[in-house]
């Protein structure tokens, strides 16, 4: 995949190869993070916060709160140094849903 040379860097490839098995979630590569504060405001699911890291080059780094991450991909776009990567959420064992699968049987509406 030469996606890095293409017009849309950041998500390489789109979606990630494990995407059919596990839900992708974001992860910050802390060594790459430049503590620019750009990713927390774009996250609408409160999944990104800045944390203090005294031993970090910039003394701070962004951190993903995995339970909140919906894998929307917007923080990848906000990161100027590509410090955010996709990782499989192996703890998520919920079944995948395809169009047509109805999961509302138990909803009393």
């Amino acid at each position, binding site marked *: *995949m*030469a*996606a890095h*040379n*293409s*017009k*849309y860097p*950041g*998500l390489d*490839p*789109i*979606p990630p190869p494990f*995407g059919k098995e596990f*839900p*992708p*979630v974001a992860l910050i590569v802390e060594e790459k993070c430049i503590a*620019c504060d*750009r990713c*927390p*405001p*774009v996250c*609408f*699911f*409160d999944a990104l916060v800045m944390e203090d890291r005294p031993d970090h080059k910039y003394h701070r780094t962004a951190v993903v709160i995995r339970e909140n991450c*919906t*894998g*929307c*991909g*917007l923080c*990848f*776009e*906000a*990161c*100027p140094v590509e410090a955010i990567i996709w990782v499989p959420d192996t703890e998520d064992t919920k079944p995948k*849903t*395809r*169009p*047509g*699968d*109805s*999961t*509302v049987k138990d*909803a*009393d*509406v």
Partner: protein
Amino acid sequence: MALTTTFLGLKLQSPLLVASGPASHDVNQVRLAEEQHMGAIVLKTVCSDKYDHMRYWPRPRYKLLDWDKQIGGRSKYFTLYSYEQGYSGTLKDYWEFIKACKDHATVPIVGSVFADVAEDWKELALKCQENGADAVELDISSPHRPGSLDFETTFIAAINTVVKALRVPVLVKLAAGPDVLQQCKAAEKCGASAVTLCNRIRGFDVDIETQQPILHGYYAGVGGPWAKYYTFRHVAEAAQSIRIPISATGGATTAEDVIKYILLGASTVQILSVIMVNGWESVSQIHHDLKGYMQQKGIHSLEEIRGKALQVMTSPEDIIRWSGEPKTGARNLWKPVEGHGRS
């Protein structure tokens, strides 16, 4: 000098509304919107059970195109490419969401629904009203709607049925296109209280490197600051032909855009992309700039300038034109230049 605006009988503290989308998807965002003094919040659209699959989101579902990462969101003409679809919960979750919003927020809450047959539309809209929504927006132009649903057959019936059944105001959200004006008139005739112009439209993009469609290989909703120019026109056209108020949306990222929409006759302006990419603080910037403009121009209420630009709009017949160059004689004779072209 105040930003207060009256819209659908509701007194709003600002003409800015949060448009339906990820920035109005849970209760905490409603709190953030309230902190930013937004006028009202249009909640994320909920789909009827028939479109249950639209409640499950693929990952990733957003892509920013033409976005310069290095300048951190100052890119002026980006595109937000989104395959997000509907509210990611059951109908029951949505009713509780509306209730929670109403319990904790003082800002007006607008429910947003999507269905296909008129009965489902009515049921969803009634439930929104029952749970306390101050108005209901019918998202008939969702970029993710099935193509088999068309305005004339499906949506007119839906608007009619919902308007008859509801006590709260009904907004109809339309997408840009050649039929917008007709659809505005039809919505007004059906008794809608306002129209929202314009929804994002269905778009598509391909990565030439992998030679594949980007994201998940299907059409997605596209929108961004470039979308404002045709929406300006649709708002101007609609403002001159319908009497119901217009809630403008599409590409508004700065106070200038908001002012332009108001000058063209919009009552309120819904914003979303700018909140998504630049954070909630962009709202206070817009409010600040809006107040600055009003101060500079000596405006006390936005009502004074609403539709002002339309009053001096001209018509094609009245545009002063000059005849062009004479087309007979030398300028109409083909003279090959030596050394160039065919001999």
